[in-house]
């Protein structure tokens, strides 16, 4: 049981000074930081996974032949040939309008789909792009086969693996997720240390009472349950407070995040498992506090006859 059941009359053996010490407040701060770090870690890990899934096995073939008609023919031929290959899941030509719309965001003419009436945008010599998604894990073999295909259908075209330019970003995000995970562990260790110090301080403060209880026949278990209950309740208050503040911050961030629909930021979310983890963390923290307090108290009491 996380918070041991102790008869009301026995609870009075410790003076009622709930929330009077620094422990609940320190635990609240640590819990809040732990939850924020955990949320950041989960969000970043999911983002890294989403990016990884998106870029793994995807390449874009860029055809830059000067003649627009030849360029279009090569792109169409390459798309058809690639789509017929067993190692290709899908091959798609990126339409000129799509490219113009993408570039339009930079030229200030987005929203009109085809670049609107922007003469500069319309006159740009855009390359023909073919996105190819591979099947399976044999990326090296697939790349060789694709190179041969490109050399045949669109000589001079460049093959751009997405992992080449987005991979470092994904790795960076994954590293940040690991750092966030490390921070969660460190703050959990710090919380446990706070509980140990609290338990030892409580033993020091109430040593006379403990000695008296021992001498009239109280067992270590009886004494431990008293202190364990008090420390668990105090830390539970801190954990509840810290969790509430963290939840408010996360909801605020989530509300602001909901407006982000594009780019890397759109890939960051907590998901059901992430929220479940965040909900479980406070309960785990209370259990850890109770367990730590119990072990600290039992170890200390064993030193007394």
């Amino acid at each position, binding site marked *: 049981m996380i918070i041991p059941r102790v008869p009301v*009359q*026995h609870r*009075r053996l410790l003076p009622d000074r709930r929330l009077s010490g620094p422990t609940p407040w320190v635990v609240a701060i640590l819990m809040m930081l732990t939850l924020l770090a955990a949320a950041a870690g989960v969000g970043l890990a999911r983002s890294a996974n989403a990016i990884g899934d998106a870029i793994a096995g995807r390449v874009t073939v860029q055809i830059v032949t000067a003649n627009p008609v030849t360029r279009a023919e090569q792109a169409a031929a390459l798309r058809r040939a690639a789509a017929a290959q067993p190692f290709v899941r899908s091959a798609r030509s990126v339409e000129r309008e799509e490219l113009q719309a993408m570039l339009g965001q930079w030229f200030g003419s987005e929203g009109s789909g085809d670049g609107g009436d922007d003469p500069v945008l319309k006159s740009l010599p855009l390359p023909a792009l073919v996105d190819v998604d591979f099947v399976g894990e044999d990326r090296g073999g697939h790349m060789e086969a694709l190179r041969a295909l490109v050399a045949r259908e669109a000589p001079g075209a460049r093959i751009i693996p997405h992992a080449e330019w987005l991979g470092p970003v994904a790795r960076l995000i994954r590293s940040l997720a690991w750092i966030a995970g490390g921070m969660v562990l460190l703050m959990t260790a710090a919380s446990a240390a706070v509980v140990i110090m609290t338990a030892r301080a409580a033993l020091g403060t109430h040593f006379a009472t403990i*000695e*008296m209880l021992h001498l*009239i*026949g*109280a067992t270590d278990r*009886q004494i431990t349950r008293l202190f364990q209950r008090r420390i668990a309740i105090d830390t539970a208050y801190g954990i509840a407070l810290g969790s509430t503040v963290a939840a408010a911050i996360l909801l605020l961030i989530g509300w602001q995040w909901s407006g982000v629909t594009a780019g890397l930021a759109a890939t960051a979310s907590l998901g059901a498992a992430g929220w479940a983890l965040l909900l479980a963390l406070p309960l785990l923290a209370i259990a850890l506090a109770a367990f730590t307090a119990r072990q600290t108290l039992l170890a200390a009491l064993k030193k007394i*006859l």
Partner: protein
Amino acid sequence: MTDAAPVRPGGAMVEFDGVGLRYGPDAEILSDISFNLQPGSFYFLTGASGAGKTSLLKMLYLAQRPSRGIVRLFGEDLVAMPRHRLPGFRRRIGVVFQDFRLIPHLSARDNIALPLRIAGVSEEDLSGPVGEMLSWIGLGDRADAHPATLSGGEQQRVAIARAVIARPQLLVADEPTGNVDPEMAMRLLGLFEALNRLGTTVVVATHDIHLISRIENAQMMRLEKGRLSDPTGALRYPPANRT
């Protein structure tokens, strides 16, 4: 529940054999202590300040293990006994401390009820005995008072009530009447005597020679510089023989 076995008929309640006690690397403060305490007997332990009375009592109420020698309590060797078995034995011992050791944030009633609560007695069953005890020590109207608001004598009475409320088999008292007036001292001694008649073995450490003369058939042990000069049974001080 206690895991301590009852004293076997005819056996000593407490046996000390060649017991020595030292704190740290210092010289022994108790040396070669040997005596037996018989069930249902009354003992006074005397000696000058610093003679080792409190240290001897500490071993009796299991707050201290000896540095050497054999200590048997209720027929069991306490020197080698694992500490998890000690609470069962402690519940059979009542202790009156020289400095009272009342729990400051508990009322007089709760301090007295403590041994019963630790022993698992229900609130229903303990309210009667605790109330009677409070009345007997003259603090029935101060049951809810905390130690800080009680006089030294009142605190001592509460401490004695706490020691005897669970009807211990062995009662150990360290200067129990040092802070009470002569009338209350006699009443408290009367309580010890009454408990002794009910079968409790009583050991009282005191300087008060008048107190000693009040109990018939009491035996006296005297500590001098850490050694027991008159082991139990070797020297008796019944009132009739006292000058």
